[in-house]
């Protein structure tokens, strides 16, 4: 669970996950927060890894994957610390993980009432179509941060999870599909964000589209050697 300045919600989210899914271990990666995210998470019963400075979601996730790999966990589920993801969706992600290496919890696939409009939505539709083609499955919500990774995905991501902005969602999918991993999507319901308002600024949306296209383009033209898993490392 990557968390950056989420002291208000992280405790409740950890408690909810631990309460709904006994037997699961929760690792909160505090991405260099300036508030008491680490303390709140630890108090709620999670393991906490604290990064010395902010690395972005990609950096926080790689800490999680490395820790999972080295500690012998087989599956990793990423859940946002802001309470946006409903932990009751986790069992369906895990169920699908039996046939796949990477499962996305998709926000628009029928359940819940999460919507976006305008350029951001077009960007997501286009991204979804391109990524669906390369992963040979139907993906509608490629920037979802609610995902489950099986052993093969954990091994890949522990070494090569991208740190770039948008790399953590888009590029991760591309390197997963280019590495021959099986990607699936299951519908999940989303709750409104506990704090903060999604922006509808057209300039921001345009910048988002530009950065997303660039991330996507470079993810496809990247030489395979840059995401090959070094065996024995």
């Amino acid at each position, binding site marked *: 669970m990557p968390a950056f300045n989420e002291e208000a919600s992280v405790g409740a989210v950890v408690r909810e996950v631990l309460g709904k899914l006994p037997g699961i271990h929760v690792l909160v*990666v505090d991405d260099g927060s300036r508030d008491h995210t680490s303390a709140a998470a630890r108090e709620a019963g999670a*393991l906490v890894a*604290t*990064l*010395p400075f902010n*690395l972005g979601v990609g*950096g926080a996730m790689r800490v999680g994957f*490395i820790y999972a790999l*080295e500690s012998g966990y087989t599956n990793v589920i990423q859940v946002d610390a802001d309470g946006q993801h409903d932990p009751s969706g986790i069992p369906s992600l895990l169920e699908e993980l039996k046939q796949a290496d990477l499962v996305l919890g998709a926000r628009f696939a029928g359940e819940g009432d999460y919507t976006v409009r305008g350029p951001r939505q077009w960007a997501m539709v286009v991204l979804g179509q391109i990524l669906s083609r390369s992963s040979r499955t139907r993906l509608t919500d490629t920037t979802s941060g609610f995902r489950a990774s099986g052993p093969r995905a954990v091994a890949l991501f522990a070494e090569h999870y991208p740190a770039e902005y948008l790399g953590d969602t888009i590029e991760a999918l591309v390197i997963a599909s280019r590495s021959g991993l099986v990607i699936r999507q299951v519908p999940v319901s989303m709750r409104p964000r506990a704090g903060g308002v999604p922006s509808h600024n057209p300039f921001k949306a345009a910048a988002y589209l530009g950065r997303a296209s660039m991330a996507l383009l470079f993810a496809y033209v990247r030489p395979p050697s840059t995401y090959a898993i070094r065996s024995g490392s």
Partner: protein
Amino acid sequence: MTVTSYIFGVASALIGLGVVVELLRRRHLRERHAIWWLFAGLLALIAGVFPATLTWAASLIGITVPINLVFFVSIAILFFVCLQHSAELTTLESKTRTLAERVAILELRLTHSESESRSDE
């Protein structure tokens, strides 16, 4: 070309080269970063001492005004040095990132084993 401008050209090249060599000597500059500067300094020295080589090189590639060749080569070298620095910065950032991740994991393991050994007592 006057004698003064000749001396000025040679002196500038020598000072430039001198600074690079001195930095190398004191290990303030690594060889891989200094190579472009050494190269540029040497070119400047050659063109300063033997201005005829500049005229010859310019006419060889069809540049009418030789000084334009100097500008072109200078900008090209600066461009490559800049690019090299950006690439180096990227490498450094990714190394810092890996170290930060490592530190976070080690700290987690440490607090974990400390709390375990405390509960054993």
